């Protein structure tokens, strides 16, 4: 093998078919309001943790839906469980339970 001084870049595309959708299925079976998000970002705008960190619940939720779950475990720790997101969601997504369910999924699926 020759060292060319660089390696082949890896793709950052969301490869939906190759991704891991177990967490998404797990959550949906326990918290049906998971499906109601319209991506408006109200939760993230009001998020207490998001004021101090780069925590973005809208995006985290979306990435789980797309099966991009490698960073969920570290990111979800940033949530402070203040519950403000629950108050603002226009679609009645049970965001608080969603976070708890994501944590359950991380345990159950041994991620």
């Amino acid at each position, binding site marked *: 093998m020759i060292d060319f001084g660089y390696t082949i870049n890896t793709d*950052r*595309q*969301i*490869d*939906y*078919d190759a991704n891991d959708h177990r967490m998404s299925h797990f959550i*949906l079976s326990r918290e*049906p309001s998971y*499906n*109601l998000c*319209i*991506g408006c970002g109200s939760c993230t705008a009001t998020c207490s943790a998001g004021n101090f960190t780069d925590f973005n619940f*809208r*995006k985290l939720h*979306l*990435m789980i*839906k*797309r099966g*991009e779950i490698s960073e969920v475990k570290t990111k979800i720790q940033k949530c402070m469980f203040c519950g403000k997101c629950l108050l603002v969601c226009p*679609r009645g997504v049970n965001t608080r339970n969603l976070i708890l369910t994501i944590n359950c999924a991380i345990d159950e699926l041994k991620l």
Partner: protein
Amino acid sequence: MNKKVVIIGGGIAGMEASITLAELGYHATLLEKSHSTGGHVQDWYQLFPNRRPAKEVLTFSELRMEGKVKTINDADIIEIEKNINDFRILLRNGKLVVADAIVVATGFDLFDAHRKEEYGYGIYENVITSADLEKRFSEGKKILTHGGAVPKRIGIIHCVGSRDEKSGNNYCSKVCCVTGVKQAIEIREMLPETEVFCFYMDLRMFGRHFEELYKESQEKWGVNFIRGRLSEANENADGSILLKVEDTLAGKPLKMKVDLLILLAGFVPSGGTKAIGKMLGLPFGDDGFITPKDEHTSTNLTDIQGVFVTGSCTGPKSIQDSIADARAAATQVANYLK
């Protein structure tokens, strides 16, 4: 009250305009270029937002037309002559129809999805349009891939030929968003094992109960939505379709395989709208639809005395809008003729 009104175009707007005019006591003659009245609604299976059968709406109009409206099918208008007091409409078969007023209800055509080359309609067998899907629904056919398998995943593409400078159509066709949601639900109902993904830029759920239908599609039917306009569709070796979009809410490109792709084809001014508008000398907007006298206050009037416009010839409209608009046009005609 022996005044004669000719309504050009036998779609839902033209039918309703003729009925209303007949009920007001005018001689209403409906000219339809094809074999039958009913227009695009004839090709539709169920209607948004409540999924009632499209036939019911057609029957509602047809029953009221009986005995009141004179209908001439296969009417190919070759010339319209405007005289001081009336219009003389010459048909290709030599027939002459005289009118004191004309209502143009020539409607729309569906955007020809072949023109969106990068989506592969007419090239890849598993790419169909929303109209093709309705046809399959109407005929009671199963929704299968070209290879005869139950699709595991179906993609629905919004804004095909709408809001697209490349297709020459900058406008929104209004009804495709909710049609997509309706069809997604119908698919899920028929094929509960099939995943459905809608790819959209905005979901324009402007009408009553539209937003509720959208919510129902998520809540009850598990329809998935990805915000991003389809950039290209390619065929895989197995005939499935590889989609490339940006998931704009994630800020990342996304690729996904679907077994069947449905293109929500938008509205374009129909051939009839272009031809009749030109014959009468009506002005067209930059979108190709007929421009009425005033876009807020005189939407059914034109600058030509005795010529009225209704329905989708003045821009995309839903069935509800078309029926209301047709009745409005009829009152304007009555006002003019009295």
